[in-house]
């Protein structure tokens, strides 16, 4: 029995056309959530069905694909999505940020600055930044339409009154081009400053919630804050144990039963490239 044959990048051309239309609309109205007819994909919701559909719609046979899961190229989600596109699209894949033209990411922006011509595709679980403040979709749409965003600051106020500082550490709400308040997907707030004025195109796909939104290149993106409690991009106060980098976002890894811990770059490609270039951290072997 022969292998079933798929259209290039799994989705049929009509579906890709529909998704591309949504993407174009999203690029025309930065930060606005465009509804689209999300398809069933051969993976469960929550595994990046939105991101995969957006990637499938923008991939061309000449593209080189990189897939990141929480910064890493070698975790389950990244490996299986990479394998999915290797099989259904036959495109080249890579783990190097520089060598890739399309990057699908789950919850991180690569440390290596992106350039024009690259596309960064985010997997988004909940695209609506107001969701946990206002459960009604009809009302949140009205709030977006009327720029009625006072409630977003009530959330930050609650953070400060309870914790003494803005404790939201990921999915930190941003204002796009002075208009739409947008959820940047659950990236750490450390990555928020990279969203603005990025030369690459940023596309956000939410499969279960059936929404696509986008940040065109060089878009103004501002993280919401208070005058007396300004936004602060935070990370663990350490250097990477393997490559010694002190400006990258770090994961904390428990290494033994005695509570020993190791801080390492969450971006594996960045860390490996530095190690190959001869940088060494304290815990490097």
């Amino acid at each position, binding site marked *: 029995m022969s292998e079933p044959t798929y259209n290039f990048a799994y989705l049929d051309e009509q579906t890709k056309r529909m998704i591309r239309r949504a993407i174009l609309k999203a690029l025309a109205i930065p930060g606005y959530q465009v509804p689209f007819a999300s398809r069933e994909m051969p993976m469960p919701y929550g595994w990046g069905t939105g991101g995969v559909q957006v990637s499938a719609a923008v991939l061309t046979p000449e593209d080189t694909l990189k897939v990141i899961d929480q910064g890493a190229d070698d975790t389950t989600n990244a490996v299986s999505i990479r394998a999915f596109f290797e099989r259904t699209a036959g495109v080249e894949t890579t783990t190097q940020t520089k060598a890739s033209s399309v990057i699908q990411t789950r919850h991180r922006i690569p440390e290596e600055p992106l350039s024009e011509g690259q596309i960064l595709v985010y997997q988004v679980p909940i695209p609506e930044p107001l969701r946990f403040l206002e459960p009604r979709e009809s009302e949140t749409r009205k709030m977006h339409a009327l720029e009625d965003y006072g409630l977003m600051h009530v959330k930050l106020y*609650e953070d400060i009154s309870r914790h003494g500082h803005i404790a939201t550490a990921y999915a930190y709400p941003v204002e796009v081009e002075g208009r739409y308040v947008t959820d940047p997907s659950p990236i750490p707030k450390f990555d928020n400053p990279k969203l603005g004025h990025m030369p690459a195109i940023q596309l956000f796909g939410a499969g279960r919630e059936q929404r696509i939104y986008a940040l065109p290149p060089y878009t103004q993106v501002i993280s919401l804050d208070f005058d007396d409690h300004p936004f602060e991009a935070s990370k663990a106060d350490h250097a990477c144990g393997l490559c010694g980098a002190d400006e990258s976002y770090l994961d904390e890894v428990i290494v033994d039963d005695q509570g020993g811990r190791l801080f390492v770059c969450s971006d594996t490609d960045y860390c490996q490239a530095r190690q190959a270039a001869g940088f060494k951290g304290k815990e490097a072997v």
Partner: protein
Amino acid sequence: MTPLLSVQGLSKHYGAQMGCADVSFDLYPGEVMGIVGESGSGKSTLLNCMAGHLKPDAGQVLFETRTEGLRDTLQMSEPERRMLGRTDWAFVHQQPRDGLRMGVSAGGNVGERLMAVGARHYGDIRGQALDWLERVEIDVARIDHRPSTFSGGMQQRLQIARNLVSGPRLVFMDEPTGGLDVSVQARLLDLLRGLVRDMGLSAVIVTHDLAVVRLLADRLMVMKSGRVVEAGLTDQVLDDPQHAYSQLLVSSVLQV
């Protein structure tokens, strides 16, 4: 003197059922208007139509705006009406949980209106919230507590603080003392009377409690079956009711 609010020929039907019909009155700055009547007489419908929560079938609600003079609020665009709803207008619900965010701390509740109109300084917002909690006699130590941990009377006072923090000129109140016991009611009325006088507020108060209007209202409208059957100065209507229904209403009050 121009009226702050002028209601003309306001009517609202629910299908064949009449909500209120052909209601007209003027409200002047600093004046408190009471609307009384039995359950189902259309007083809440009237209030919701005036406040923009319901769309009336006919009539005008003219409001003296700060910049453009008298304007029909029913013809305003939605953003304009919302802006009015969180700056110059306030609405106190009968049930505090309808007017409060129960999952947000007392301070956040009071600060919401300020943040909605662009306040972005945490210290200032908190300062104003503290000031207002004090003015409505809520222990300032409870600023970070959720309203769900408050008693009914405290919740109602918090709702009032949340509404008055933006310095509105017109307050709509729907049975503000309903569901509270009499001693708490008395304190709340005392507080409301003080605030209305100090801030020079205009207010429209809907209630079925004649004692409330006796204490708070300058003028009174009596409604029955969707229509205004009698209107006049509060003391005049209560002491010398002319319409048969007003007489029934006044005589129904229990004397202790």
